[in-house]
């Protein structure tokens, strides 16, 4: 398979954002995933979110691990630097990149194998450190590139395409992210663009570890009857907590609102308007969030929406108190103490 660039021409009447860019300026190469893959819908949602936020593409860096999901950064944001790293190690690479330059927005794309199995430790520690990032797991409950093995998010008792039952308990990455210290935790469904795009936008505006678990059916290995990650299963069992309408400094994106509205102001001044479909959920209450996930899981329901939010969390740069100038922009004069300081050090060692 080769790298397929998309043709550059586009319709002259394409909608433009505040930067004068069109949707096409946020796209990447043509996807090499299977036709109908949920991951491609997520890529499209990311593209849409970045377009609507008018993010300068070159100020975003997209990083991933290994697997189907981790290939997707090539299919979005072609003007952004990308890094397809090592299986399960995107969080550490992204942490290092973030330390080097705090002025770039970091998008980490991972899968359930990449995050819930081989990279579970790195996922946990990136969340607990409060790395300023958008961490998206494209969760299909299966190993696609190696052809259909169960992953750690496959539900107990679900059937593989070969008809084998999964004997092991599934990990709930959203619940874990809440426990691990992520300050923005959401779940969505690849087929629900109306919910997913605002969630991604809100995650980009959040200054801390923002985690989104996106259920993304695998058309080739996990979309059959008996699978709990198939399109049909999720559509039937989805319980939407809320829909988000995101307002940044730019004109708000209107969506049809239903139910009780609430506007949440983020600490950078932007705001999220919450449509509470389930009036019971207080997204700032950590234990309520966990209890809700568990209660609904027991009923076989997939909770989607913004599950937990803490605007006041301290992120990694704040905790380390690093200088406002990105570390990668510091010069000799900033970094090298020089010969006089060295003389004093020599003197102390005699």
């Amino acid at each position, binding site marked *: 398979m080769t790298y397929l660039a998309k043709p550059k021409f586009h319709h002259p009447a394409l909608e433009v954002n505040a930067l004068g860019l069109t949707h096409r300026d946020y796209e990447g190469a043509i996807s090499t995933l299977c036709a109908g893959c949920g991951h491609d819908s997520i890529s499209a949602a990311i593209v849409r979110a970045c377009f609507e936020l008018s993010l300068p*593409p070159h100020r975003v860096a997209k990083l991933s691990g290994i697997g189907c999901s981790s290939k997707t950064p090539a299919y979005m944001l072609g003007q952004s630097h990308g890094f397809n790293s090592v299986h399960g190690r995107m969080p550490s690479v992204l942490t290092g990149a973030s330390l080097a*330059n705090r002025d770039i927005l970091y998008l980490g794309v991972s899968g359930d194998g990449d995050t819930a199995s081989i990279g579970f430790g790195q996922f946990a520690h990136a969340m607990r450190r409060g790395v300023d990032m958008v961490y998206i797991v494209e969760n299909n409950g299966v190993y696609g590139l190696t052809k259909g093995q169960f992953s750690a998010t496959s539900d107990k008792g679900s059937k593989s395409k070969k008809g084998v039952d999964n004997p092991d308990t599934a990990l709930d990455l959203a619940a874990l992210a809440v426990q691990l210290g992520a300050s923005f935790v959401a779940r969505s469904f690849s087929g629900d663009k109306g919910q997913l795009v605002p969630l991604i936008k809100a995650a980009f505006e959040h200054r801390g570890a923002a985690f989104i678990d996106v259920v993304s059916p695998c058309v080739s290995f996990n979309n059959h009857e008996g699978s709990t990650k198939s399109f049909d299963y999720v559509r039937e069992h989805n319980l939407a907590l809320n829909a988000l309408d995101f307002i940044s400094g730019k004109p708000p994106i209107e969506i049809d609102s239903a139910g009780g509205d609430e506007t949440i102001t983020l600490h950078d001044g932007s705001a999220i308007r919450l449509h509470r479909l389930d009036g019971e959920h207080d997204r700032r209450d950590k234990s309520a969030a966990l209890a809700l996930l568990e209660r609904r899981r027991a009923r076989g329901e997939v909770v989607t929406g913004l599950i937990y939010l803490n605007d006041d969390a301290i992120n990694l740069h704040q905790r380390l108190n690093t200088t406002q100038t990105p570390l990668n922009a510091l010069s000799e004069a900033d970094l090298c103490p020089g*010969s006089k300081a060295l003389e004093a050090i020599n003197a102390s060692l005699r």
Partner: protein
Amino acid sequence: MPIQAVNDFVIRFANVNGSGSASANLMFARSILRMGTPIAPRNIFPSNIQGLPTWYEVRVSADGRLGARGGTDVMVAMNPQTFDADVASIEPGGYLVYDSSRPIQASRLRDDVVALGVPLTEICAREYADPKQRQLFKNVAYVGALAALLDIEIGVIERLIDEQFKGKARLVEPNLRALRLGYDDAKARFACPLGVRVRRADAVGDRILVDGNSAAGLGAVYGGATVCAWYPITPSTSLVEAFARNCARLRVDRATGEKRYAIVQAEDEIASIGMVVGAGWNGARAFTATSGPGISLMQEFFGLAYFAEIPAVVFDVQRGGPSTGMPTRTQQSDVLACAFASHGDTKHVLLFPDGPGEAFEFGALAFDFAERLQTPVFVMLDLDIGMNAHLSEPFRWDDKRKFDRGKVMSFADLERGREFGRYLDVDGDGIPWRTIPGAHPTRGAYFTRGSSRDRYARYTEEGGPYVDNMERLNRKFDTARSLLPRPRLRKARRPTRAGVIHYGSTAASMDEALDLLADENTHVDALRIRAFPFGPEVGEFIAAHERVFVVEQNRDAQLRTLLMTDLGVDAAQLVPILHYDGTPITARFIHREIAARTRRVAAPRTEETAA
């Protein structure tokens, strides 16, 4: 006949780990340095926090011999657990200083060793009520006794105590008192000084006493490192601590308290190197420090960094392996693991500092090499360099020096329309240009991956572009040969067909061994390797000698293997001399091993030449 020696002896302290002896021993060592005689102190310690035996050795050498010598002239036996073995290890004619508070059977002493019992426990029990003080001041009291026995100026030690507890008058007085108690007791009890003694001299000059980890950590500060990600492992931890200490002093904005560095203690070594790779990719100078087991864990990332061409600096403070091996003992046994780290065809740049001086120099230079070559660079320290204090030339820095950031395309370059191909070799040195994320709104973005790609960073699994890329990486490796620190040649006084190759912490002992050999009319040319891949001098040196000894501190002659594979040298020409019991290699060992093998080769020839 008791040993008679002025400013030339080895003293060893046998202590119990965690008993507070370390600072007293260091004070003793520094007092001799202050009296103008070079010293080489070494810690021999267990993997333990409290309770197991530990030794501290000081070689006092008027001639500036700073390698481990072997043997002990004066034993300060403060550990009942190891007493018998300690007594047995003293050179004939040597001296034993011990705590005589409880009687020791005469059968446990030796006729050929002068036994000097000082009732240290008794003295301290009499003077101090607090059990902790009794223990701590026992250490200071034996330093006092040694001052009397070895003729060390007590005023020098008093000044050191003053400096050490500057501003804490409460601590100064009882320390001075303990020192004096030991001193007076020994003076009254024995005919001082002994045959072994210290005399004021002027042989230290402006040299400094520092351990290699402190030096390397400081080098990283001077080299402009801003991101450090690490995981604690002996014997590398103090390197990161040194970086942190110096950054806290030298890299914090006085007005805002903001830091011009970031240090993250990662969850493991894999995450450490992942962060370093991420930061290096994003244009910051980043490093990690680790030891053998950490190197093993980092393997996959080394392959990525090699293939995706990302600068990274790794300090490997080597210890005794394999596995947990001897974690507090020294070896040079990670040479091959680092040179060929990872899977597939990979090879890496290694630097071999010989002590703290080069640990500082290479610690800074490594960042230039990593960015110039866009690849991981390994600084190969070992426990002996890293954790022992060595007398070294003072650190120097040229304020005109600029960091070499390598081939990084700027906004202006891209704006001008300069062609960018991430893996395009535009000038034949195998090093492509790179861009840093965020460089330009519409030009220079590329996708970094560990998968095969063409010159413009486009994914491909075709054979042609893959081979093209691998060949370019080889060209880049050849470029490194001329860029890295050159080996150091020490020519023998007479022409000889015998040569020796060595590296790293072997240097000090090697210098002494070569002198010992020369005194016996065995002449050997020596080449100290300072980097891999090897420069042309290395092959020329081997070709110019009939037999070349390769002296290493590992079992499997790892550098010898590297010489064979990198230069295609005939195995028979390279004679391994290996020392790997975990103790630092000694001049005596090198001398003995080379002498035994050269009598038939070099010696007759040099005699002919002499005639």
